[in-house]
């Protein structure tokens, strides 16, 4: 039992950190520009594919830096020459623009890299076990992924709280016009934030690709969950997104790991459900992929502003 708890915790945290890397960019972009970027997960996919292609020439480590930079640059271009023009027509136009962009990126990826998964893998030496516990190996790569995620989290916190740029971003979040009147170039700041958010998604792709499989459907599978994270955490709240990511990561892995049925869970909370009925006998493991969406519905009913959100959506 202990081994399941330990490994599920590790897996849950790793998954949660990956989710946070994706959702932090999304929530930053949303709170600053009011744009819900539907193409965000597509940038995550691009990160994985770029790292795959670059990695064949440069190796893993340079690709780890280059691929997110490339994705970030692409994101900045999208903002500068796409979103900024569409912006004049209001939020609905922006939403539709990112929605269309997601489809375009999906199709492009299929045209360039094919419709089946590519063999994007971590370098050979990182497949060795970092440690072995109860006969289960934990690979070096997974350790590296956790480390990179934490480093990124610290860097993000430092950037936002301790630097001048962070000060401007935080000011622009709430008082965009005032920042503009003070002589700062707000459109350029927007472009930077959009590019930065995309770069974070790209980084998640680089380290998530070998774990989750790099295939054209990867954006579509993770996309909805990232939105769930942002809503559960509270629209525009970075801290909220962090807790929501970890919560969803842990719930999902523990639901798989625990050998119990819906009836066991509900009855433990004092209800009385037939353990052999249609609903009661469904195992929690089967429900696991659904948990983020169950959580989404519960949050929207009981706490519409999310865990840490300040605004009513």
């Amino acid at each position, binding site marked *: *039992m202990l*081994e*399941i708890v330990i*490994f*599920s915790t590790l*897996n849950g945290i790793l*998954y949660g950190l990956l989710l946070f890397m994706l959702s932090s960019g999304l929530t930053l972009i949303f709170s600053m520009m009011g744009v819900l970027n539907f193409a965000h997960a597509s940038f995550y996919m691009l990160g994985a594919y770029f790292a795959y292609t670059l990695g064949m020439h440069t190796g893993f480590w340079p690709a780890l830096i280059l691929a997110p930079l490339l994705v970030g640059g692409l994101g900045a271009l999208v903002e500068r020459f796409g979103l900024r023009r569409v912006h004049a027509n209001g939020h609905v136009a922006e939403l539709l623009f990112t929605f269309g962009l997601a489809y375009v990126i999906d199709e492009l990826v*299929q045209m360039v890299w094919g*419709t*089946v*998964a590519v*063999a994007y*893998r971590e370098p050979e030496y990182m*497949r060795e*076990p970092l440690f*072995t516990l*109860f*006969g*289960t*190996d*934990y*690979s070096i790569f997974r350790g590296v992924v956790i480390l990179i995620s934490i480093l990124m989290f610290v860097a993000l916190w430092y950037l936002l709280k301790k630097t001048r740029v962070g000060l401007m971003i935080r000011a622009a979040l709430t008082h965009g016009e005032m920042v503009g009147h003070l002589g700062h170039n707000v459109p350029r700041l927007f472009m930077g934030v959009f590019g930065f958010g995309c770069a974070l998604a790209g980084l998640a792709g680089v380290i998530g690709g070998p*774990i*989750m*499989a790099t*295939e*054209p*459907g*990867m954006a579509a*599978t*993770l996309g909805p969950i990232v939105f769930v994270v942002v809503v559960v955490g509270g629209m525009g709240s970075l801290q909220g997104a962090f807790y929501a990511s970890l919560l969803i990561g842990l719930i*999902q*892995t523990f639901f*798989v*790991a625990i*050998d119990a049925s819906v009836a066991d869970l509900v009855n433990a909370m004092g209800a009385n459900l037939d353990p052999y009925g249609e609903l009661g006998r469904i*195992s929690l*493991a*089967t429900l*696991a*992929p659904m948990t983020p969406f169950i959580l989404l519905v519960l949050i929207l009913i009981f706490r519409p502003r999310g865990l840490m959100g300040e605004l009513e959506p």
Partner: protein
Amino acid sequence: MLKSLFTFITASLLLVGTAGAAETVKLALIDPLTGPMAGAGQPALEHLKFEAKRINANGGIAGKQLEIVGLDNKVNPQESLVQLQKAIDSGIQYVTQGNGSSVASALIGAVGKHNQRNPGKEVLYLNYAAVDPSFTNERCSFWHFRFDANADMKMNALTTYIAENKDIKKVYLINQDYSFGHAVSKAAREMLKEKRPDIEIVGNDFHPLAKVKDFTPYVSKIQSSGADAVISGNWGQDITLLVKAAAEFGLDAPFYTYYGASSGVVTQLGDKGVDRIYQINEYYGDFEDPEMAKRQVEMYKETGWDFYYLRLSTMLDMFKKAADKAGSTDPVKVAKAMEGLTLETTNGEVVMRAEDHQIQLPMFMSVMKDDMKYGAEGTDYNFHKVARIEREDVTLPTTCRMRRPK
């Protein structure tokens, strides 16, 4: 003079053109060609196209040239019905599909309804891999032919092999959560109980089809259950990612699978799959037959995919034999000729049982090995034969009571 020559040439070209068009018979493949399961559909499409060339060089189907049309269904039953309608509207009378019994179930229903309402325009459904046993039992249909052993037959062969391995005491079952996965799990439990009552089933998990990207939580569960063998009917991405996660976490228990040699597995696993991944299938990766070896080499060179679906070759060969025998490509006549048809394959004789339209064939247990003569996916790894299970030992009775057209 020149003008009349020109009209003559164009006229004869047109004639040849129309004559050529009339002389084709189209077979539509309705399978996932994009998305997470494309790794199962794409190689099938390439295999069909590759083998169609051979069929056409040998005189085609009852004298007509065979043309393969790929239609993408994204493993979605609704999407498949749209594609089926599209095929029917363009005059296609033969469809084939394999990936997903959920899809096959929808197709059987739709084809049956269409044929009832449109006599003279019948459509035949050639199933090459959807193995839910019910399609050739309680839900059998005259318009459906299965060229793959069904889930129960595969489990029959697989458990026969496991029963002889006395080291196996605890078995873990992990399958996809839909009709096929449940059929595999049920068959495994029943047949193991009968053949090896001492084996304990230490886990019986179902996960959603094509949704799980990270199988590590399942793997830690298998690890802690103390299982010394895992049985899985997973296919497509679900088998690739499952065995990849198992290898990564150092799970030593061997995997007895239906589709362990699916595309991507050897590339993803490399050394860690050797002696660990078993597959029960109608073929294996030794290619002892020089003719098959030739096809493997040529197909890999031409398409980048391995010669994996021997049953697709069998299907086309039987299609040709039946149509040639009937002297027509009319689906009703072909279907009647197909019933009870035998074919000599590289593995010996196979029969299309008339009672339920379920092919009867020998099966092979193979295991992943390094340094194989013909490696899969451009590596040195492939699946080496460890046991042959004869046709008589694979076969199972049927409950089918087929209704045939008059």
